[in-house]
């Protein structure tokens, strides 16, 4: 067995994911490079991957998030940027984990809208979402569609 020596030990890696009509990953990357100060930044199609000491990474993220706070999302990543075990350049096909982000990207516009709205509306006046643990009856419209699809 081969001995394993980790690279970038003691650092953190974070994804910055952009879902905005006003900012592109390239705009953010330029801003991030300006204030990087030794932090590693990689531009991707969906945003940035930032690696470095935790305080520095948080500083860069806090600054670039100001560009469009409700449309920039941040997530931790286990591997450093370009790691051969995860990077699709080495593996081919989509990177493992990309499909999860791809799925949530279809939902993120609703979340961004929610983040904008809670600033304008009184939080206590917003009703709670449906409890998923409560069994709910079949929606009449859905039943109608099912019947129609069977009849046609």
């Amino acid at each position, binding site marked *: 067995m081969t001995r394993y020596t980790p690279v970038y030990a003691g650092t953190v890696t974070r*994804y910055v994911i952009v879902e905005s009509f006003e900012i592109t990953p390239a705009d953010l990357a330029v801003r991030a490079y300006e204030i990087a100060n030794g932090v590693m930044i990689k531009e991707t199609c969906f945003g940035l991957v930032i690696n470095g000491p935790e305080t520095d990474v948080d500083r860069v993220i806090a600054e670039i998030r100001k560009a469009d706070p409700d449309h920039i999302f941040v997530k*931790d990543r286990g591997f450093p940027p370009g790691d051969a075990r995860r990077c699709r350049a080495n593996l081919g096909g989509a990177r493992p984990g990309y499909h999860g982000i791809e799925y949530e990207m279809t939902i993120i516009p609703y979340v961004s809208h929610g983040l904008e709205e809670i600033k304008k509306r009184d939080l206590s006046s917003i009703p709670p979402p449906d409890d*998923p643990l409560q069994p709910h009856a079949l929606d009449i419209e859905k039943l109608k569609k099912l019947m129609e699809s069977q009849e046609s």
Partner: protein
Amino acid sequence: MVKVFIYPATSLILSDMVARFGHTPLSSAVAVRERIQTPGLESPPLQITPEEPKKGLKWAAVEVPAGVRGRMSLYGPMIEACEAAIIINDADLSFGCMGCARTNELIKFLLREKDIPKLDLNYPKSEEEGVRFVAAIKKFLDSLGGAK
């Protein structure tokens, strides 16, 4: 800052929401990073060694497949450390082989057994549901106190 376990543990939305509202998200990336940054014997891609299924015995019985026990060695310590949890119940993205499916069931079971504040949600499917979704998370996280 309260440690909040998120399910699905890879969720971008939940991870962002918890950190945005001042708490610490416990996600699978944190557990993976811990292994990736620990020296030892090479065991790519996730540095999961034969030791992990043994550690997983703490949360799953010996007759449970090694795949579930290995995964539990990542999630188990986080479930023990968490002080609150947010669970999304219709997370299709967390589907997978039987190892993933059974681990997901076990994670949800352990979270429901634990006496901590929990928030159960579904993903929003419209803008209005998005508002309710974000408001529910904000109210829940505010109620925990100690936000950064």
